[in-house]
């Protein structure tokens, strides 16, 4: 049987892959290196609601230029709805309307925001004080006492706000604070109290930008004014100042989403960061989706964020193939290390390694007891799964109690895979002894760490996400490796006695 078709296939894959990559590099000016670039955030808002079989009007507040972010382009997707962008005073919003709609509806808005190093403050006019704040019977005294207490411990509007927030944080929460919190939501309550104390303040809604996040919602922040200055204060912690990755979506104290003629409305956000060279970022061409521009970059951001990880998996697979075919490393479960490596990306390496070893070690101890109970296999593995979940929960709680927030990421481990790993290692222990368990365990971890290092490399992430042609090149490489009949590295040691004596 001829191998010619095989090599033709590999050659074709390589060729197409390289051509696609080069085409993308020159035609779209996507650089091969992730360096010297501007960051661009793509943020997508998805509005969901149920239309009541009649006319519908949807108002969505939109972000505008602000320190740290410049709005490049914006797009919407909404079948059948009429759309207009409205601008009054300083607020911008999109208004969708339709004469007749029924059932669940989805509207999309996406914006590309360029990260700038905006140090300058933007001006904001303080909102008018709400004079007519009414408190019901027991709440009025509670409010007064809380305000008085915070007032004593503060010098100006900003310190006053911080003290006020402290009154409501867990450690110092007094009786009055608890009473008030039982009636009002925290941000609303805080603005009421501030207004009561003659401090100009309002709630603004911000979006915390984190790469690849999906289904996020806005968080309320307090904007507190004094004289010509204002600051942003986190109503949950009392921290002052705007974090760099906070995008103020709505900053005039208005509603973010208003739907008339629909119910059960909500808005959720997906976001994705990508780097583009300065020139491209500023020009930000968005060519039409022709067949040649067939790329995942034309997908909604939510799916793109998903693909950012999915496109890394072939890299992990390549590492496994290399280690098994060229080195001859033994692992417990062929692609288990790739899944562990994916978890490492979420947990960071050291935390991940410690977490993995802890879970597997404790799991093995408990599994050795289960093996004495004489159970059927499926039941036993299920019991191990529950044990693994229990271990992970326990470690999360313990890590949190000790203030090790990194420990919480242990939940990213694929639990069913871990359970099977424990089951397999336990059987290996019983049949071949602890030495073999250590050998395979070491092989698996080494593979996982190498796969992690490859997949977490910024250049690799840049290349796999921006050049889909690379996937074809990877495919060709894996096919070629599948054809390798030479020795494995570890075999050079294994068969060494055969080479020696003559």
């Amino acid at each position, binding site marked *: 049987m001829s191998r010619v078709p095989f090599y033709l296939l590999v050659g074709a894959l390589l060729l197409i892959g390289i051509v696609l990559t080069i085409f993308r590099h020159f035609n779209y000016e996507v650089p091969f290196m992730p360096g010297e670039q501007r960051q661009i955030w793509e943020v997508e808002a998805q509005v969901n609601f149920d239309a009541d079989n009649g006319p519908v009007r949807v108002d969505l507040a939109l972000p505008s230029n602000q320190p740290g972010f410049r709005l490049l382009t914006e797009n919407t997707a909404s079948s059948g709805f009429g759309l207009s962008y409205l601008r009054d005073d300083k607020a911008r919003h999109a208004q969708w309307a339709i004469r007749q709609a029924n059932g669940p509806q989805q509207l999309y808005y996406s914006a590309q925001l360029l990260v700038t190093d905006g140090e300058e403050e933007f001006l904001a006019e303080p909102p008018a004080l709400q004079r007519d704040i009414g408190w019901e019977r027991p709440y009025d005294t509670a409010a007064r006492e809380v305000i008085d207490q915070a007032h004593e411990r503060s010098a100006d509007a900003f310190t006053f706000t911080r003290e006020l927030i402290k009154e409501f944080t867990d450690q110092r929460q007094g009786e009055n604070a608890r009473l008030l919190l039982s009636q009002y939501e925290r941000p609303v309550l805080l603005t009421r109290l501030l207004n009561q104390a003659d401090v100009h303040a309002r709630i603004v809604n911000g979006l915390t930008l984190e790469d690849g996040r999906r289904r996020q919602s806005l968080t309320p922040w307090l904007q507190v004014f004094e004289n010509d200055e204002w600051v942003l204060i986190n109503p949950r912690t009392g921290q002052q100042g705007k974090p760099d990755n906070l995008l103020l979506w709505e900053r005039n104290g208005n509603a973010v989403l208003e739907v008339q003629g629909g119910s059960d409305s909500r808005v959720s956000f997906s976001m994705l960061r990508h780097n583009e060279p300065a020139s491209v970022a500023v020009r930000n061409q968005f060519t039409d989706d022709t067949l040649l521009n067939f790329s995942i970059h034309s997908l909604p951001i939510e799916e793109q964020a998903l693909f950012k990880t999915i496109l890394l998996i072939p890299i992990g697979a390549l590492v496994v193939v290399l280690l098994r075919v060229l080195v001859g490393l033994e692992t417990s479960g062929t692609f288990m290390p790739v899944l562990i490596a994916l978890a490492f990306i979420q947990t960071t390496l050291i935390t991940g390694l410690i977490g993995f070893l802890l879970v597997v070690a404790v799991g093995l101890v408990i599994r050795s007891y289960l093996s004495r109970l004489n159970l059927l*296999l499926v039941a036993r593995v299920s019991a191990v799964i529950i044990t693994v979940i229990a271990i992970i929960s326990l470690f999360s709680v313990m890590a949190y109690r000790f203030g090790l927030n990194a420990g919480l990421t242990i939940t990213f481990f694929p639990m069913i895979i871990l359970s099977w790993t424990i089951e397999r290692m336990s*059987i290996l222990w019983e049949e071949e002894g602890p030495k073999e368990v250590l050998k395979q365990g070491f092989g698996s971890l080494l593979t996982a760490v190498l796969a992690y290092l490859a997949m977490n490399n910024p250049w690799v992430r840049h290349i796999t996400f921006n050049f889909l042609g690379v996937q074809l090149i990877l495919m060709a490489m894996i096919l070629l490796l599948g054809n*390798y009949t030479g*020795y494995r590295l570890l075999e050079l040691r294994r*068969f060494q*006695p*055969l*080479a020696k004596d003559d």
Partner: protein
Amino acid sequence: MWATPAKLQAKGVIGMNRRNIRYIGRYNDRRLYPLVDDKLQTKLLAKRHGITTPDLIGTVSTQFDVKRVVEMVKDAPGFVIKPAKGSGGKGILVVERQQDGGYIKPSGTRIERVDLERHVSNILSGLYSLGGTPDVAVIESLIAFDEVFAAYTYEGVPDIRVIIFRGYPVMAMMRLSTAASDGKANLHQGAVGVGLDITTGAALRGVQFNRPREDHPDTGHGLASLYVPGWDALLHLAASCYEMTGLGYLGTDMVLDRHHGPMLLELNARPGLAIQMANGEGLRRRLDLIEKQAETRSVEARVAFAQQHFAREGELASSA
């Protein structure tokens, strides 16, 4: 510590990748795998082809029947329970004799009825089978191995592995269990591998843990005097497994029974490469020679061809 690839190549040593692609991939039709991966099927097939295998006591295929195992083995002095689809010797339980309701393993450890039942239950759940698929437990009577090997083994049954390539026996070795291997016949666990001369069935060379060995580590008996009686018959039996299965690259595991002579224990469609270590020789040259043989030969002619071309001098000092 390390050999260069060129040197291994010159010695004709075959690596895993080459074995997988060049021999298993090319000569073993995947369709035929179930014949050897399922020991029950192999057994029934062997019976049809007149090849002797250990007596079948019974099979257990449902958890409901697990309780019947004790009844099945009631009259057997010694027996072996194995998963039909097991691999690498996993899940094989050997019971040498029964004693007041308990079962004595070759190591002398006693196991109880519940242990026996749990083992069978584990086999049925697929614990030892390839891919974890539900399996069948096969119960066979224990082989009474030939006394000539008594001095060369510790607890286990010494078996003879012959690689059959396109029907020609190309290389053979005997695997002797040791205390280090815990009575198991796997070389990587510490069993002694003894290369056998294809022409005569006499020992060529012994290795344990990849190092040359002149005697059995537990019995102290010199390996030089080891030879397999009735070698020709054994080779014929092994070579005829090619017609039986149609697999071109086949590992046959044989035993010599005191009463019934050579028996087929099991077949392996992915035989390991340790046999090269035991023989101190790469497989490549022999496989290349066989690949050049165009004409179809009978079993007898193939065995004769192999015996004529693969003769070797032993490397062991014949002190015994």
